[in-house]
């Protein structure tokens, strides 16, 4: 889905909490907003999982494709970030339901990227 060329086999996902980047996401949510992010929104993980299946990437690979290590420092890959921003926008538009519902799905994935250090903004979605 992300790269053109030979289609890759459908991804096999582990339970999401086993991914380092999902753990970082949950830690970030907890640090910022409090509560128990692993359980307080039952839709959170299914939404990320749906996106992972949509792009055929696991969470760690999504972050790997939007960041890089250069001169020993973590950097954001501009093109990767832009590509995923576009993928999220397009995916969100396909979600059935109201615009608010669509925004929630997209924002859940954006939140995953944001708490892994990948800045994303989608503008007001009202």
């Amino acid at each position, binding site marked *: 889905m992300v790269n053109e060329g030979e289609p890759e086999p459908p991804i096999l996902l582990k339970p999401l909490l086993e991914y380092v980047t999902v753990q970082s996401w949950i830690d970030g949510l907890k640090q910022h907003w409090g509560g128990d992010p692993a359980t307080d929104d039952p839709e959170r993980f299914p939404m990320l999982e749906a996106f992972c299946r949509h792009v055929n990437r696991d969470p760690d690979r999504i972050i790997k494709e939007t960041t890089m290590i250069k001169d020993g420092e973590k950097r954001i890959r501009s093109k990767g970030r832009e590509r995923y921003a576009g993928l999220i926008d397009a995916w969100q538009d396909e979600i059935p339901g109201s615009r608010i519902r669509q925004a929630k799905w997209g924002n859940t994935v*954006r939140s995953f990227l944001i708490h892994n250090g990948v800045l994303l903004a989608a503008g*007001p979605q009202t």
Partner: protein
Amino acid sequence: MEFKEVVGRRRSIRFFEPDRPVEREKIQKMLEAARLSSCAVNAQWARAVVSFRDDLTKDQLKRLLTPVASLNVEMAPVHIHWFNDLSIVNKIQGSRLRELVDVGALAPTHGWSHKFVDEFVYPQILKPMTAGPGYPVASTFDVGMAVSQALLTAFDEGLGACMVTLPGAVLKEVFNTPDEWIPLSTTLVGYPAESWQAGGQRPRPPFEELYYEGQYPKPFARDPKVVENLKAAKMIQEPAKPNNPERIAEIKRLADKYGLPM
């Protein structure tokens, strides 16, 4: 609002009511305040282009967005783009200094005269200065003072505002500015969607780490009585605190209202 309270209330507002228009007269007041700011040799380097967001085409707005500032830019109904007109000193050639002499702002008591301006200040100081490497930096300092006055005026008028940096080349192209104008920062203006407290006054380094007396590194002693006086005058306000439940609730409410990620 009293001046000290205006200073105390100013903080970068990043949630604007996107559909609430800002009165044109309030924008004019901001520009009027900028025009009255202190400026070396009365050159007036500051230039501004006021852009009403909804007058921009979709493509123009999109080109202005940067990853960091995009949400603020999209939410703010008014953008004031600031520039430094580097050409002004050689255009006016000291004429505004002569005006200052004429009105008694610069007087012979301090050594000023038309002849001094015409024969010495412009040709021997200002003109060569404009060719020096420090000129853009020095003149931009004065633009900053103008911008600061405009910024404070926004808060005095009950508006919210914040400063952002947008892509300069795009600004020049979209707003068709002269080549000699250097694009600087942009003031985003609108009615705050967040409370005016916006979580409290932003953290600042300790006073003593910033200001010195006599010689570095002797700190300028901070008198607690003055601090109390400024608190009473609402210039020094309740500081923003980490993990403030009220602020967290406010941001959650705004995220829900505007469909923003958390």
